[in-house]
């Protein structure tokens, strides 16, 4: 019996058992729905809130409007001025309103006297969602301040340009579209989660599960190379990971159909070609994921311990991808050689419609294949020492 045929025999058996495993099947069938559904829902939410913002402008609560009608008039040009809540500080702290401008009663008096007129800007820097409103408020206040300063200079016969050494022209290229694009950056995260989650029940079942059911010893007494045994187990887990990944990609393929591009203001690049490219690009890390899970599960003491350790293991490669949603600077080239991260960065670009950069793809694929070899070799060594059976 040669190596390859024993590999196929074991692989066929593990897959047969896998498709009869309801838990594994449910995971493989339902996890893929999660990512696309979340993205679709969030895209709708984002497009709704940004549409509101675009139509009516940012709402800025102002307390003491009557103290500075001129200032309020300028604010109204750039935002929607609304009444401030009774306790502005507490309201901002709770996040009820993003920002509050408080104009004290002595505002007009100080202004007329030519002294700096006090204005309180209450904001919470730690609130991500509050930033745009706070920035708008600051910008409008500065603009008004500048306007008044210029008038005062003109009155004194000085050209306002004198106090304006810089002519900063602010051009905000952020649109609802780029906000939605940030959401799409979660796609690589979901892809990595899919390949781990899909293969996990199988990886545990064929190692810790077999030991717990005591079927590993008869298997080790069978005349097959241990390397074919472990690679078949990795293969079975990888197959489920691959299937789950493919389903997730198909799910994301539905996103542009479910959310019309007119609604989110840009076209999402999730066409079949991009999806196939992504799938092929991810295959090496599917193998790495499966092999890692088999090693960790084989070394876990019990079925439950294996579940815990694999859930933690899964976070390690998927979290850096999550950070992509917030990264702005162009990443250094060597980062593409980091398995999982490289693929996630490339997919992140593909989603935005950037064409595939061959050197980046080669770097990510090459390094991942090397890692796959190393991890598989390590798994083989673990099994050849009989470790899954006795040293757990």
């Amino acid at each position: 019996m040669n190596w390859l045929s024993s590999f196929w025999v074991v692989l066929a058996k593990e897959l047969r058992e896998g498709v009869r495993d309801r838990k594994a099947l449910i995971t493989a069938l339902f996890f893929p729905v999660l990512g696309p559904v979340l993205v679709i829902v969030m895209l709708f939410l984002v497009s709704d809130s940004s549409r509101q913002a675009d139509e009516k402008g940012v709402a800025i609560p102002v307390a003491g409007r009557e103290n500075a009608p001129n200032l309020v008039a300028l604010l109204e040009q750039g935002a929607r001025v609304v009444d401030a809540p009774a306790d502005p500080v507490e309201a901002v702290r709770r996040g009820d309103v993003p920002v509050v401008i408080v104009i004290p009663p002595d505002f007009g008096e100080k202004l007329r006297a030519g002294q700096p007129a006090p204005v309180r800007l209450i904001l919470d820097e730690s609130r991500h969602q509050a930033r745009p409103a706070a920035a708008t408020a600051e910008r409008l206040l500065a603009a008004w301040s500048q306007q008044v300063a210029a008038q005062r200079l003109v009155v004194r016969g000085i050209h306002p340009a004198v106090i304006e050494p810089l002519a900063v022209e602010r051009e905000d290229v952020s649109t609802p579209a780029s906000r939605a694009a940030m959401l799409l950056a979660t796609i690589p995260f979901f892809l990595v989660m899919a390949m781990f989650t899909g293969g996990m029940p199988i990886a545990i079942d064929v190692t810790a599960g077999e030991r717990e059911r005591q079927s590993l010893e008869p298997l080790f007494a069978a005349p097959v190379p241990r390397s074919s045994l472990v690679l078949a187990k990795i293969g079975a887990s990888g197959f489920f990971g691959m299937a789950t990944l493919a389903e997730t990609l198909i799910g994301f393929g539905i996103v542009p159909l479910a959310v019309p591009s007119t609604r989110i203001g840009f076209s999402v690049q999730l066409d079949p070609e991009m999806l196939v490219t992504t799938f092929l690009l991810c295959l090496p890390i599917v193998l790495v994921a499966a092999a890692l899970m088999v090693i960790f599960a084989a070394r876990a003491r019990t079925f439950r311990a294996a579940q815990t350790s694999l859930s933690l293991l899964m976070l390690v490669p998927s979290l850096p991808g999550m950070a992509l949603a917030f990264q702005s600077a162009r990443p250094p080239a060597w980062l593409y050689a980091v398995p999982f991260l490289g693929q996630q960065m490339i997919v992140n670009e593909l989603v935005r419609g950037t064409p595939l950069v061959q050197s980046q793809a080669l770097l990510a694929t090459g390094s991942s294949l090397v890692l796959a070899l190393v991890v598989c070799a390590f798994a083989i060594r673990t099994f050849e020492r009989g470790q899954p059976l006795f040293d757990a």
Partner: protein
Amino acid sequence: MIRLDAVSKSFGDVHALEGISFEVPDGQVTGLLGPNGAGKTTALRIVYGVLRPDSGVASVDGIDLSADRIGAQRRLGVFPHAQGLYTRLTAREHILYFGQMHGLSGEALKARAAELISALGMEDIADRRTEGFSQGQRVKVALARSLVHDPRNVVLDEPTNGLDVAATRQVRTLLRQLREQGRCILFSSHVMQEVSALCDRVVVIARGAVVAEGTPDDLRRQTGKESLEDAFVAAIGSEEGLA
């Protein structure tokens, strides 16, 4: 034929086997007898190649397990202490799976599986998934899968453990049949009745070493005891771990 030659095995500080040597000839049932913890399972695990000895040589039909594990395992039918089954496979699928791993395939394998199923009287459970099988049913499946490739040598670790009387008798009958066919049979037990009912030869081990060896009659003669049980106690020097 199975041979162990000065085989030692330690797990950390525990010396499970200390230079154990014995031979299991063809056409006989050899019982490996010893109290719990004597090293029976360790010795058998070395014979069927899931453990490697620290020193010494274990061989099956002259094939050294350290040099050619797979070659030796092909000649072995193994019924380990733990007879875990795959709960999502049927009894027949178990037999087919192990047959395939032994290089069998196609019609020959199917015919062999059917033959074993009828020989062990398990037609009624053959195509049921093994989830919820009784201990007796599980033992039958485990026996069938260990014999699927018609091995010359059969190793069984406490095969009648947890079986009822009927199933125990069935296993004994099977072992006698295997002996008639000229096979080499090694089985371990700590149950005296079992050994005296079945064995042509007995190897008594205690604390990782062989303390007595021979036919049951030899053993009684050597120790000057009437019953095999007394002989056994005399051989191992204590009553600990007996049943």
